[in-house]
């Protein structure tokens, strides 16, 4: 069972997050300020942390910086009411951590925490395999069983991203950030249109569907059992 440390000063928000995470089988520890939070992060050794950016005592980014100085590599999801992604946050993201702007949907938070906990292992393999799907990173080819799938470059990147995170819920915002490199949310539902095309190619007629739309949340690439 994964242990998550939540550092959030608003007790109501903290309660909601804790309840939701506990329902999904996480063990949650909560601290309401940065100083205690930092102590708990050092003593409890959580698997992941959720840190509010504005905290009494010590602000969230300072807590993370202090941890990083101690060589603590726990993945962190930063919550903030500030939409502006400044240089400090940008540095954070480079380290593999994530940033979520308040207000957020609960599914978004869960999806991102799960993504942080299950960071894809950097493999030397040049072929990704999920169920019958096979993606060759060098040849840039995709096959489902014996059927070859022709993909456009962007679709290839999307499928690669999903295959590295199979059986994980991927929200639209995550896909926009990671696959399209978007720093903003476009008016049109870009992700749905592109995903629709990819799904059309991956799940041919007669195939068992692999790409699933999770209503109001995002998409999952399911391994067929």
């Amino acid at each position, binding site marked *: 069972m994964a242990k998550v440390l939540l550092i959030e000063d608003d007790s109501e928000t903290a309660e909601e997050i804790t309840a939701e995470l506990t329902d999904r089988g996480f063990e949650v520890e909560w601290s309401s300020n940065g100083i205690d939070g930092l102590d708990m992060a050092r003593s409890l050794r959580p698997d992941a942390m959720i840190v509010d950016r504005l905290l009494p005592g010590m602000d969230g980014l300072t807590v993370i910086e202090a941890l990083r100085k101690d060589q603590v590599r726990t993945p962190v999801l930063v919550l903030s009411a500030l939409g502006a992604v400044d240089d400090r946050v940008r540095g954070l993201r480079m380290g593999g951590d994530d940033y979520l702007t308040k207000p957020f949907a609960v599914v978004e938070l869960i999806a991102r925490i799960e993504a942080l906990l299950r960071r894809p292992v950097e493999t030397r393999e040049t072929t990704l395999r999920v169920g019958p799907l096979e993606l060759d990173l060098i040849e840039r080819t995709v096959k489902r069983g014996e059927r070859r799938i022709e993909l456009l470059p962007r679709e290839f990147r999307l499928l690669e991203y999903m295959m590295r995170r199979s059986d994980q819920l991927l929200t639209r915002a995550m896909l926009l950030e990671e696959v399209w490199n978007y*720093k903003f949310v476009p*008016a049109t539902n870009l992700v749905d*249109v592109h995903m629709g095309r990819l799904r059309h190619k991956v799940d041919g007629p007669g195939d068992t569907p692999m790409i699933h739309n999770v209503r109001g949340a995002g998409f999952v690439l399911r391994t067929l059992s």
Partner: protein
Amino acid sequence: MATSESIASREEIGRQELMLQVGFIRSNTFRWASAVAGVLAVFVVVLFGFIYWKIDQYLITRSDRMIAQQIRYIAELPPERRINAIEDHLAQDSRSVQFAGLFDPKGNLLAGNIEQLPEGLEIGAPVRTVKVARAERKELGDPLVRAIAQRLPNGDTFMIGRNVDETGEISHVVGEALALGLLPAFCLCLLAGAWLSLRAQKRVEEVNQRVQRIIAGNLRERLPHRNVDEPFSRLAAIVNGMLDEMETMITALSGVGNDIAHDLRTPLTRARLTLERGRTNATTLEQLQEVADKAIAGIDQSLTIITALLRLAEIENSRRSAAFGSVALHQMVREVCDVYEPIAEDKGINLGVRIADDLEVRGDRDLLFEAVANLVDNAIKFTSAGGRVDLELAREDRETIVRVTDTGPGINRQETEAVLRRFYRSDKIRNTPGVGLGLNLVSAIVKLHGFRLVIHPGPGGRVEIISPDGKLN
């Protein structure tokens, strides 16, 4: 009540007047006037001193010359006429400033009004100042005189002198003139200073009162200014210009505030109604979930508006030009096209791209991408099936242009400016979903880069982002 108020206000006025009086002495204008008056006084004193010194010198030189002439004249007379001549000379002197003495070799006075030859008077030397002892009227004291002495051929010594105390009189006259001239001038100076200071103080007070009213919220108030070319009036005119601009801006802002409130209230009202109805009418869990979903959608729409507004403010306030780099527009345009191609196709719209050349500009790649993506997004949204949207990168007349054209309704000539207002949505397209801040965002991004956003009137949409050459942000 009214009486006590009027007393209070009278006291208030009295206090203000006192403050004004104290204020004007301390005021800079008055200090300057005092300093000028002081400098003037010193200058006048020095001037008069110089005049006095010059006159004094002139008088002494003149009397020295006269003494030298007289001694020569008398010395050349035959000895028997000398005594008479000396007595005549002294008798003619009504002001008793002349002194003379003829002494025999033993030092006895033969003629004249001096008791003895003064000490320190060298015989045959040039004229000098010595103290003489009077022979008569000793009560007048021993005066200082300019004197000269000469040995006569018969062995007698003759000395002649002249009292130069007259110069003292002159200094008296000069001093009087000084007092008569300087004092009024000094007073005049102070008075002028006080008047100027008081006037400035009054105007400052007047301005202060108006400004207080502006601070209190009366944005219509303006500073007083007379139509004369005078620093104070010019300053007032400048400040008034600024106030005009600010009033316009504040009015516009409050308009925006109303728009925001309206646009936020619409989805929130819908969410509230849905929840209210669902609470009373829903009988199954599914129905309740459906209601909750609808309500969440409404709230999400409000949040989208807030996010867009914050983002707008963020771009407008950012001074990110320091982080600008070289942006390959040809790649970026191709990428935008790449992203929107499937969307256009789904809607049955033909999305075309024309790239004239590999062109680069200085800027923030992400923001420029957002701007162009927004324009294409809009174009696709407002074009109906079977239409065309074209994205073009061109060089025209030393300018780099990103142009988005569509076969949609376009924008009226009257509306080309209005579309840049926040939340503006043309009546024709009111039913198309959207937040109505897209073009504002584009405009803010373009402005941040120092580029130009040109919206051409319809029919057919045509929007251009123009980057002029030699623009170094």
